[in-house]
């Protein structure tokens, strides 16, 4: 019954999870999908692991975006070099813009 939103096939569940994170799907589809993976002896365990992974990756991206976890930092010399390059780029930019004013 492909037109019934509550009766998804395993393939439809897998394809939905391939294109979107579970949490980004419309509420009705999320509900139907959750029902399917909880009950399905074929794709249930596999797709539940995908959903868990998606949740983990989203949490990682939140952490990453907040900048809290990184153990990588620029060395002092690299920072100085970047600052010089930035300064030069800013000067070049303002020279370019000067004749337009």
């Amino acid at each position, binding site marked *: 019954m492909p037109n019934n939103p509550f009766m998804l096939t395993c393939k439809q569940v897998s394809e939905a999870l*391939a294109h979107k994170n579970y949490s980004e799907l419309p509420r009705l589809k999320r509900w139907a999908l959750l029902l399917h993976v909880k009950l399905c002896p074929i794709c249930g365990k596999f797709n539940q692991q995908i959903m868990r992974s998606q949740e983990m990756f989203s949490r990682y991206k939140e952490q990453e975006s907040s900048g809290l976890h990184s153990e990588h930092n620029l060395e002092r010399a690299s920072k100085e070099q970047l600052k010089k390059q930035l300064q030069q780029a800013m000067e070049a930019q303002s020279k370019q813009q000067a004749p337009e004013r």
Partner: protein
Amino acid sequence: MAKKTEIAPPETWVDRYGDYLYGFAMSRLRNPDAAHDCVQDTFLAAIKALDRFDGSRDIKFWLRGIMRNKIVDQIRRSIKENKVDIQAEDEALIESFWFKYSGIATTNPDPWQFNPRKHYDNSEFWVIFDRCIQQVKEPARQAFILRVLEDLSTEEVCKVMNISSNYLWVLLHRARSQLKTLIEANWTGSDAK
């Protein structure tokens, strides 16, 4: 004018956002020189485009957006140099009954050896996670970065990597499986195996 005052001046960017951007670049490019160059290219591109920044969000997210393009370009270049060829075992997976019938690789995946959810608030877990991403084998790692970390659509990733959507699915499956194995092997928390 009020808008301009909200933007951190470029001469402060290195101190404010240098490490933040470098962390992103290292997770994806693994190489300190390549990551440094990526930060540099991001700052230089941002200087040129600064008059197009509308100040509607924190500039660090705008800089991060510019860096995303740089990372995608870098991966695109590296794929051009080393074309992604489908492996025989991956081809077999795409041709397998379970994949054709229900879009999965196996009906019975190994369960996690510990519950990672318990550690989502522990920053040490994410440090381990970050190290594990860097150990995932190419081209699964590249697919993971583009699709999951950089949020490109399936179509965009297939175009960048010049692969089919089925093969992308297999590569992401490989990346997830390897990450799980790596995290289980590297996690030393109290509930580690």
